[in-house]
């Protein structure tokens, strides 16, 4: 039940991390996350304004480390954080679409730097969203309300950019997430155009991932994108509550719908401490809990494990991928 087999690939639900919480262990309205070294993960929680916004630093082994940052306009604070990315030193870059700035922190949450001016001129930002760091520690910033992508040094010096408002190739409508593949190609979740566009590192349009002839691969307000080492493309299909997977050439492979049948250990602790919650879970079909609800950001690690953060379920589901899978005989 928890395995999706398609086109010679297997996507197996492994486990999940997270639970609903207003501080400490758990997340609240995660918008994005970043995978650090030694199994560290930084989860960017939009929270509910003043009180629950924070970056949760924890490990993939469910160990909570610390809460970083809080609501506000001062250095190291956030109002509407959208995305988080790490450079090669594991410094944190966080975009804030309200303050129109990028904040830089070290991995312990110490404030290092901030940059970004509000506006529409080259180098200025309006609603900065998705972030991606390239191998030279330069930063691609999705400048969402300016309908473009801009590339900066880590210190905020403009290196280039492309895009304008529209629906043609290389144009955007309120784009959101972004990622790079192993060759430095750039993928942008073109949110309000319901597609993902692929570009060369310098912004030349290469391809788009959009509707399929039968409709099943259609995207509805995609927010995040990731590419594995085989070139398969994973899209957080926010509006459809799915993750869509495409072959490198854009051919649709399959959808994942969420499989979190086994709760995270944090969730399990909570259930164990609450007999009435345990009872309430027994009296109903829990399948609805397994399924994605607002998958918003997708990431891959070095072993092609897929991580999917869900804004409304406050967790990250983890999938493993197996290639060249030989099916068992059908008459077993």
């Amino acid at each position, binding site marked *: 039940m928890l395995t999706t087999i398609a086109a010679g690939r297997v996507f197996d639900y492994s486990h999940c991390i997270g*639970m*609903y*919480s207003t501080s400490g262990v*758990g997340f*609240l*309205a995660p*918008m994005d996350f970043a995978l650090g070294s030694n199994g560290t993960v930084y989860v960017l929680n*939009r*929270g*509910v*304004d003043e009180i629950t916004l924070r970056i949760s630093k924890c490990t993939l082994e469910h160990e909570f480390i610390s809460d970083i940052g809080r609501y506000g306009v001062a250095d190291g604070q956030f*109002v*509407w954080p959208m995305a988080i990315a790490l450079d090669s030193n594991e410094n944190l870059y966080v975009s804030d679409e*309200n303050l129109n700035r990028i904040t830089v922190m070290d991995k312990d949450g110490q404030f290092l730097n901030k940059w970004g001016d509000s506006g529409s001129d080259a180098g200025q930002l309006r609603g900065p969203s998705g972030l991606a760091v390239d191998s030279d520690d330069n930063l691609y910033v999705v400048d969402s309300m300016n309908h473009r992508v801009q590339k900066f040094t880590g210190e905020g010096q403009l290196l280039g950019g492309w895009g304008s408002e529209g629906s043609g190739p290389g144009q955007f409508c309120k784009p*959101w997430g972004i990622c790079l593949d192993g060759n430095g190609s750039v993928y942008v979740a073109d*949110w*309000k155009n319901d597609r993902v566009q692929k570009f060369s590192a310098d912004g030349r349009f290469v391809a788009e991932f959009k509707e399929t002839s039968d409709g099943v691969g259609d995207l509805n*307000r995609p927010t995040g994108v990731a590419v594995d080492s085989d070139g398969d493309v994973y899209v957080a299909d926010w*509006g459809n509550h799915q993750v869509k997977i495409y072959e490198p050439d854009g051919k649709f492979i399959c959808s994942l719908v969420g499989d979190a049948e086994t*709760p995270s250990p*944090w*969730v399990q602790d*909570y*259930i164990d401490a*609450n007999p*009435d*919650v345990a009872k*309430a*879970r027994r*009296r*109903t079909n*829990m399948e*609805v*809990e397994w399924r994605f*609800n*607002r998958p*918003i950001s997708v990431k891959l690690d070095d072993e092609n494990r897929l991580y999917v953060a869900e*804004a*409304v*379920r*406050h*967790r990250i589901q983890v999938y493993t991928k197996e290639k060249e899978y030989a099916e068992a005989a059908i008459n077993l």
Partner: protein
Amino acid sequence: MPSQEDIALMAHLMRRAGFGASRAELEERAARGYEATVDELLNPGADSGIDEDELYRYFPQFESSLAPVAAQTEWVYRMVNTRWPLKEKMALFWHQLFATGNSKVDNPPEMLAQVAMFREEGMSNFPNLLVKLAQNPAMIYWLDNNGNHYGSINENWGRELLELFSMGVGHYSEDDIKEASRAFTGWTIGAKPPRQPVGRFYWSFEFRPEDHDYGQKEFLGNVGNFDGDDIIDIIVKQEDTARFLARHLYNFFVADEPQVPAWNITPPNDQKAIDSLVKAYMESGADINSILRVLFNSDFFKNARFAHVKSPAELVVSTVKMAGNYNQPRTGFTQLAFECGWQGQELMNPPSVESWHTGSEWIDGGALVRRVNFAAKLLSDTSLPGVKAIVAGLKERGTLSPAEFVRACLDLVGPVEVDEGTFQELLSQAQQGGDISWDSEETSADSERRAGVMLALIAATREFQFA
């Protein structure tokens, strides 16, 4: 070019059938005509009036938080920014009539789902709406219909359906309540996963045949094997129901009536108006849109300007719409939601199933101070887009004598009508600064400052408390 009277009438319509409108919108609508605007208001699109993708992009907490204030904030956002003002206003009307409170339901997403149902169904027809209400999980829980079982009835829903939601006290018997309750046995809520610890899940309506009383009932003189739908069918055919709903609509949209508990003994302020709404109800088969059309196009409505004390939600939302500083996603909507509560209308948490008392009962000392300060602060801030537009409107009128200045301010911020005493006081204040002129940067800056002060004073008047 619409006349001053056209604009004043349009402002009245938009205050009541919506949450107010900017001067530019009023002029535009007045140019299209009153009846055309009524038509537009009565025929909103099928959508909710808000781009929900944008809404949840900027406010993910609206979908994911479990806190009451997140639900209240989402609703305030919708009231301020909806494309379909009457649709949203009707949601507020039904919320005030079918008062359901989070103090018991303790489930803000379900409360919001109930409001969404009011938005979707609130302009359809009354029997349909009552069936949806009877099947609404928040309502089922609020009035204990999940505890209403075959052979062991709980009368709470049956009683309030008749007393507070349709016919009004005195038009049915205690036996009718029992029989109605029997008909709604087995109308309950399906189990769902608990909201903790991975976030919200929604209830659903569930009909349990084994818990339903299929036996014969006698209800309001009718005999049959009635179920809930049949009971509602009988209820909506009663003229008492038409009168009850008419009086609620009149109280909400036209002019303040005595409080509901007094309706049995106090006749309506305008019996003829109620009669015409009852007629529209009976002739249309309880079609809500048809009744509203009669209401908004009637003389009794058009002549009822400033005969209704703004509810806190009306005051808060119409003031920020006037100030123009909340017409897109931004921070601070939470404060608006709190403000409604602090002024005495905590959305989705009325004090009881008898709802808030309206009219002058919205006002006590604390609430009045809050209302005055809230509106005066916003409308005196000449940096806000809506206030800027008012100042620009003054500037267009050129040099103004103190009296012209006061009249122009009253006009552009409403038009607001004040009594002679209030006018004289405002005038005496304006006279201290002499004429308003715009001929140099200095005088313009001073005129702008004086406009801010004058708008604050207008916001502080008694008259401003009325819609």
